[in-house]
């Protein structure tokens, strides 16, 4: 059995396909591509496919890791070509590698957000004010709770520029199995700070990083 890490880009209208639906979609794509998948054993065998980190509905991704297990050795090039011949529009395997890090090594996500309705300086002021907060729903035991999170503390780094009349934000936020903050929550926090709704017209996850700020591979 071989572990293989696929690097998937998800762009365009397919961003509206949810994390749950992506699993079924990939399952069918690997079947069509006739990749020699390893099936779990037991009563209801299913292929091993794992999306390492969920992508929010509506967010595009350029380099999303997906782990699969295969039973026969197959070259990365062959896997990539076969899969790309079986993918629906908007999904593409950018690379096929052997996993370097364990999934738990994911610590940050790097995002690009195209904003309307906010200027560069307004956005800069909001992100540097030090008390940007948003509400985040979570679970404590079986109870649903709403926590107030200080977003400012969690912004690892950012850059702002203007492009075609839009304000473009590149930002690194915590991601992974321990704590997550997504650009939608950041947008809510900025809206609350400014006292008006700003819209993230396009949100793209550029890639994932480890704790040491190295690309997750």
């Amino acid at each position, binding site marked *: 059995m071989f572990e293989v890490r696929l690097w998937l*880009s998800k*762009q*365009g*209208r*397919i961003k*509206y*396909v*949810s994390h749950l*639906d992506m699993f*079924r*979609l990939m*399952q*069918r*794509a*690997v*079947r*069509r591509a006739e990749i020699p998948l390893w*099936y779990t054993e037991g009563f*209801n*065998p299913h292929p091993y496919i794992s999306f390492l980190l969920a992508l929010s*509905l*509506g967010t595009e991704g*350029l*380099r999303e890791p997906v782990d699969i297990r295969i039973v026969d050795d197959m070259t990365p090039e062959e896997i990539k070509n076969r899969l790309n011949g*079986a993918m*629906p*529009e*908007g999904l593409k395997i*950018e690379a096929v590698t052997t996993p370097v890090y364990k999934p738990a090594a994911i610590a940050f996500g*790097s995002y690009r957000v195209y904003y309307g309705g906010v200027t560069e300086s307004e956005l800069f002021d909001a992100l540097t004010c030090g008390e940007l907060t948003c509400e985040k729903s979570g679970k404590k035991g079986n109870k649903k709770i709403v926590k107030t999170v200080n977003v400012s503390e969690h912004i*690892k*780094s*950012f*850059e702002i520029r203007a492009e075609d009349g839009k304000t473009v934000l*590149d930002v*690194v936020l915590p991601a992974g199995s321990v704590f997550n903050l997504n650009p939608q929550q950041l947008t809510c926090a900025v809206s609350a700070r400014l006292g008006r709704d700003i819209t993230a*017209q396009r949100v*793209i996850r*550029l*890639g*994932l*990083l480890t704790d040491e*700020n*190295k*690309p997750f591979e």
Partner: protein
Amino acid sequence: MGSIPVSLHVVLMKGCNLLDNRLEKILPLVQKPARYIGGELNSAVKDKNSVDIRYAFCFPDSYEIGMSHLGIKILYSIANDRPDTWCERVFAPWPDMEEKMREEGIPLYALESGDPIKDFDFIGFTLQYEMCYTNVLNMLDLAGLPVRSADRKSLSPIVMGGGPCVCNPEPMADFFDLFSLGEGEEVNSEIMDLYKIHKAKGSSKDEFLREAAKIPGVYVPSLYDITYNGDGTVKEVKPKDGAPEKVVKRVISDLDKVSYPKSFVVPFIDVVHDRVTHEIFRGCIRGCRFCQAGFIYRPIREKQPDTINEQCKELIKNTGYDEISLCSLSSSDYTRIEELLTKLLEWTPKENVNIALPSLRIDNFPEELMQKLLSVRRSGLTFAPEAGTQRMRDVINKNITEDEILSTSRTAFAGGYSAVKLYFMIGLPTETDEDVEGIGILAKKVVDEFYACPDRPKGRGVTVGASASSFVPKPFTPFQWEPQATPDELKAKQEHLKATVPSKKISLAFHDIPTSFLEGVLARGDRRLADAIELAWRRGCRFDSWGELFKFDVWQQVFAELNIDPAFYANRRRSFDEVLPWDHIDFGVTKSFLMREAKKAYEAKTTPHCRIQCAGCGSNKLNGGKCECLK
């Protein structure tokens, strides 16, 4: 200020498959937005400048329901096989999406191109059940079109309808330009060919429709004048401008030669039936007297096992699905079922593909084959005795005995099953309290069978689910003249069953009575119901088959306001010599055959199935006198 260490070697996509800005604005705000984006695998994408005909195939219900329907897949693939045609899919947007579309002024669009369907050449609806009628009007309106045929003056779009409900399309007659009766594989193409000629000539809509009415199977409702008697019944249906007296439904003579899709559009989201579906035969030999499908899809025509097997292989390859469902009205009546399953089971297990076989009759299925199927995957066990007593089952011609039900249950329990579902109907013609009680008694006998079985699954109790739906008399059945039980009567029957059910191991389920009542009104209605359907829709009715969205009070108000008595359609006994609103429609089975069957029902006499003895239903005339049961 940090930098972004991930290299941006991937080129950001621009334009191409991005959606309209107005859609981008609303999609994040609605439930399951993937229903509205198109772009699914195997969807047909063409260059609109290189086709002559744009065809919007509309399913008047949600995406999840519509994408489960086999007919749309078949007709979609046949239309797109034509180089001159681009056929696209359209579903009814869920109310949250509809609201946003109306707010933003986004007209109903086709999924493949995103283009508004208002400018298409054809808008075709499949009418699968009566409760979708308000959705048809809503979709036309969302497209920006007048809902009534008479108010749509130009040649295009031609609004056409098909599906089982068009065996009595009269309640919807004012909204459609034409109906295509029966199986659409051939006639749709004939309609499109004729349209192309008239489009090139610059004909008017009326000119085109008059010619279209000459195509066998095409019913143009505006070419028929209906007059009524003083008592409200139909007096006469008079064709004009050369339209035929009777429009006969179309059938496909040879199922092995007709085109079947090589691929299915694979939805992104989970839909109701998300798998390869393969039709193994059309028609039914059984003749259960309550069942419209059993009569309107006649005559019997089977597909060859080799054809089915090869087509299934190709579909699995092109879709990546892991399940095949063999579909028909009664799978075990397929004469070559063992041969077919043997062929399929040669390759499906090693490809991790399951085979589902719905609609199995319990009386004639070989046990050995059952074991083979179960070895792949075990599904639920469901029986449809339909009625609780033998007398009642004889009336409805459900030729199944209590012994057969119990012995199959016994086998199932010994094989490890501990849950059984039983389907019944209440409100059947001649039904007594005793027949209603019989439902609980039969279910109890199934429970007892479990505890009497020494090999039953240990440590588990048994659950028997008994579902009792309300009988709705339908056109082209021997019960088409029958009064439907009134809502009060149905309520009393439900209560009686609840009060007499003899075991706690039986869980009862019922259908919503107002829904069954409205279904009964629409199923045997005439053209005068168009006003009620339109007004109900204008007052907000849509998705009437969805319990949470059904507004029965609105329908009641509408009937009262328009002075329409719904009981006239649902609860009135028709005499055998009454002119029925659908008498000018011919679905093969003759009126005299249906009368013979009705009379036998009153005597509780059964009719053997078609392979034992031909009952002379008359449907063989549709296939040049041929019927596969007459060999």
